[in-house]
């Protein structure tokens, strides 16, 4: 049994039988899958049979804290939640920070596995090695914030993961709200939680986590901190957070604007300029152990939404509502608040609303069907529609199914559904900018999502088309190359200093594995961290924290292992090579004078499969790759 670094146990709760048991972690399992998404990949793969109904009682829902969570390692705060996704029917998974993971580990568990389904609403209370399944009839129907209020009064100092009305009503893209302002949002984990009649998971712990070598861990934390602080991305991120990407991507006409029809709204730069955002932002808020504190505290001090106070101005929701649906800055904050209370994935709900407006404009959805007029930029109508969706009222019932399913009802509606593999595409429009980041949307295990593949040294200043579609501009001095923690041979393949380019296929392979490693260890993927923290320092930290000696290669192999396992899960669930494609619009309609070339993209995909050691023709992991990763028994 593992007693250092890890809490040492997995809590398994069977909601059908209203029982729980604690299972000790085995060292080999920790070596092979590390924690966080790694644990989830293995458990979901082993225990969710092919063809399981994502909203049926056979699906399971896992919360796993990353290995380094609860330590002083900078940004180690993140917890991964996974299940079979009701959006994609594939591997569903989502990652969130704040303090939930720290409390989960302090309560004695690295992971929580929820199986079965309760007959009536319940919530789960976990404290210091014990779990209680409690009646939630009193809070069922309340929004997430009310639920959290109630729980925090009942259990002071606790952390709460909860669902709002969207999750209760099985809105497919419902999120699990992580305390008030954060969420495990993507791929509909909240709907899975709702399908189990599980309203909330409350954790509180005082057990502590014992590092194998406290002094060394503090030293390595310092080293990691200095690395992060030395990144050129550090200062901008510290002061302005993820909103840094908002203006450059607008300039490139590479934003989702009005349902991916424009590249950038004409007044985007005026309405969402830094000076506008700064009017409402105060102070910084950090997740556990974060030295960056990228989140802003937002207070709307004038206008219709005066008095609104929350943690916000994260770029993804801001673009989703502000640009994708054309809402005002204040309306965007309101939409974020509503999403948090109702428990929506803000990317998906923004995508659904944008599609609905487009279908309305195309005359496919009538005013009678909605009950009111819809338009891009009509804050009131958009908020009203979101309310209908959360409660599955009127057309909201259909829109609660997500763009992929809802569009299929309307003849020709599919062309307005902006998704990959059933999941709404966030924020960035690949037509405006060819990059590892946008390419990653195609290869993402989750479907249309931008958070599992990002070039650790992306230069947001440049967007030149002189490079061929396989490359993006590197754009930094050689020192950036030197300081990138990446095996030399792979680095040489990925980055061509002479021509100042980065190879998208090879970099995607590396970036996906690196981010998967971060999601296993619970470290944040914010640019300054992803840039400077690599497997070398992580291996040192992992070893002194857990007492399990690993080297950088082993760590990367573990991350690659769980990525492949998730791919195997997707293939078992019927994912086809042709599913890795963007909406037709991206190939057919121009934005900023550019559209995608399908053949070229296919070529990059093949190169990516090759880099991954997968079959170039089918996109399936080869036997050799699986044997190399020790996954031979999982070969399909």
């Amino acid at each position, binding site marked *: 049994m593992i007693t250092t670094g890890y809490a040492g146990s997995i809590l398994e709760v069977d909601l059908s039988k209203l029982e729980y048991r604690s299972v000790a972690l085995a060292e080999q399992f920790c070596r092979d899958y590390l924690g966080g998404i790694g644990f989830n990949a293995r458990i979901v793969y082993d225990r969710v049979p092919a063809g399981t109904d994502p909203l049926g009682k056979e699906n399971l829902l896992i919360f796993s804290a990353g290995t380094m969570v609860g330590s002083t390692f900078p940004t180690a705060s993140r917890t991964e939640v996974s299940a079979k996704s009701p959006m994609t029917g594939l591997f569903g998974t989502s990652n969130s920070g704040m303090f939930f993971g720290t409390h989960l580990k302090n309560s004695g568990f690295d992971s929580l596995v929820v199986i079965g389904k309760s007959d009536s609403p319940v919530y789960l209370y976990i404290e210091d090695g014990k779990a209680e399944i409690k009646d939630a009839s009193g809070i069922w129907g309340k929004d997430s914030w009310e639920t959290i209020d109630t729980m925090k*009064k009942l*259990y*002071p100092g606790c952390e709460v993961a909860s669902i709002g009305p969207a999750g209760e009503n099985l809105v497919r893209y419902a999120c699990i709200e992580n305390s008030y302002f954060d969420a495990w949002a993507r791929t509909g984990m909240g709907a899975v939680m709702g399908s189990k009649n599980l309203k909330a998971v409350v954790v509180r712990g005082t057990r502590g986590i014992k590092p194998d070598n406290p002094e060394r861990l503090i030293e390595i934390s310092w080293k990691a901190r200095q690395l992060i602080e030395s990144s050129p991305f550090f200062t901008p991120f510290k002061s302005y957070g993820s909103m840094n990407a908002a203006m450059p991507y607008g300039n490139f006409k590479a934003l989702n604007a009005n349902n991916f029809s424009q590249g950038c709204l004409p007044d985007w730069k005026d309405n969402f300029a830094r000076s506008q955002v700064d009017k409402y932002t105060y102070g910084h808020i950090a997740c556990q152990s974060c030295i960056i504190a990228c989140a802003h505290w937002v207070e709307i001090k004038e206008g219709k939404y005066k008095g609104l106070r929350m943690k916000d101005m994260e770029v993804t929701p801001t673009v989703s509502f502000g640009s994708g649906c054309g809402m005002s800055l204040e309306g965007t904050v309101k939409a974020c608040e509503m999403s948090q209370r109702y428990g929506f994935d803000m990317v998906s709900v923004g995508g659904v609303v944008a599609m609905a407006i487009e279908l309305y404009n195309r005359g496919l959805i009538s005013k009678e069907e909605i009950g009111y007029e819809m338009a891009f930029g009509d804050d009131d109508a958009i908020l009203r529609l979101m309310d209908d969706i959360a409660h599955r009222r009127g057309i909201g019932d259909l829109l609660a199914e997500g763009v992929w399913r809802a569009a299929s009802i309307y003849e020709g509606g599919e062309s307005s559904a902006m998704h990959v593999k059933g999941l709404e595409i966030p924020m960035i429009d690949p037509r405006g900018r060819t990059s590892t980041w946008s390419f990653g949307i195609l290869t993402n295990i989750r479907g249309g999502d931008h958070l599992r593949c990002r070039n650790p040294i992306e230069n947001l200043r440049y967007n030149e088309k002189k490079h061929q579609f396989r490359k993006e501009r590197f754009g930094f001095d050689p020192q950036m190359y030197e300081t990138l923690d990446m095996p030399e041979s792979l680095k040489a393949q990925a980055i061509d200093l002479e021509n100042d380019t980065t190879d998208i296929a090879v970099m995607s392979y590396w970036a996906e594995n690196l981010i998967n490693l971060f999601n296993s260890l619970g470290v944040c993927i914010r640019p300054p961290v992803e840039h400077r923290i690599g497997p070398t320092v992580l291996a040192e930290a992992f070893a002194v924290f857990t007492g399990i000696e690993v080297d950088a290669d082993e760590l990367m192999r573990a991350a690659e292992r769980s990525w492949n396992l998730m791919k195997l899960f997707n293939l078992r669930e019927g994912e086809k090579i042709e599913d890795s494609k963007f909406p037709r619009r991206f190939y057919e309609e121009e934005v900023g004078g550019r559209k995608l070339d399908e053949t070229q993209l296919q070529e990059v995909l093949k190169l990516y499969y090759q880099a991954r050691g997968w079959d170039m023709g089918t996109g399936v992991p080869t036997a050799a790759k699986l044997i190399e990763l020790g996954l031979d028994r999982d070969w399909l």
Partner: protein
Amino acid sequence: MVSIVIVGNGAAGNRAAEIIRGYDPGAAITMVAREESPEYSACALPDYLSGWISREQLFIKQWSDYRKSNINIISGVNVARIDAGQKLLVTEQGDISYDRLILATGSRTFLPPVPGHDLPGNFAVKTVTDIDAIMAHRPQRAVVVGSGNIGVEMAASLKVRGCQVTLVEMRGQILPRIFDPESAGRIRGMLTTHGIRVFTGEELMAVSGCDRVEKVSTSQQVIACDTVVWAAGMKPEVEIASQAGIEIGELGAIKVDPFLQTNRPGIYACGDCIEAVDMLTGMPAQRMLWPNAKRQGEVAGLNCIGCQVAYEGAISLVTSEVFGVPVASMGLTAAALTGQPVQVVEGECQGSHWRLLLVDDRIMGMQAIGITAGLGAVMAMMKNRVLITDFRKIVSDPELAQRAAWYLPAGRFLNAG
């Protein structure tokens, strides 16, 4: 060189001696003590009985500590009388003259004059020797008379020692002076869960037995036992004071002015033997508690060397652990506030329970079971007489809240913040 004599070697007396020494290295300080031991914590006597701490750990000072501070201590001596005119303390071992006298004579266990209270097997709970005697007696079946915090703690400690324990309280509830019936009922439940029998509303009528305690008779029943522990209250020790013409107040304790001086100039008094002003009500009251005694010792000590310090009043602050669960009471109870418009704010979470008593928008008392975090802020609000309306204003405004951050932990008890 001024000569100061302190009668008593408890919390008040020692604190007085320490503070005088701190201010005036040259003063001649003499302490006269009845007991033959250096200062120890009377509060921890039940912990010593239960075995939670050792006998050595009880002692706050060693004899050498007195020498180090150049304090002359005369122990094991009874003071016969005070000759205030001659400024003389008359003891069985000779006379001691003083320039200033501090009376910190403390209190003694109140033993009701019931038949049999002098049979072997009856014990008071006041001194370390009392506990030594109880331990030597090896009690098997004990009746604890009185259910103040000492009574409750003694009952729990005896239980931990494996005794069969019965707690008998004359009033209708346990802990009547520091808990309201609602909270007291919960604590009673904790005691009975752990196997202590509790009888309230029963007066102890007699102790009987051949040559030692065999049973007690209450107003309701007869209880067989081999030990009776008396915790039915304390009486201030005022005999030598009253004989010397020092004024005794209505509550039977030495009357003092705000500077803790008695009606005899140069004679100060502090600790359990005085009638102090209650900090919250401003009325004379007896709050015979360790923290109050220490503060009074400080004030008396300072005033007797010429530093003018007015005593701000005593406040009740009692904490205790009942079978691992912390219980706390601060300020006044509802009974003590009778006649005033008391607003009760109660709360409960995860087995912990609290009860706040508000009068005129201010906290006047609080009782808590199973929770102590955040009570410091409540205590500060109570002492500073903070208006709850102001508090709510502060916690709902981030800017104010930031500037008065120390109050925030109290929010959870007041459904604010």
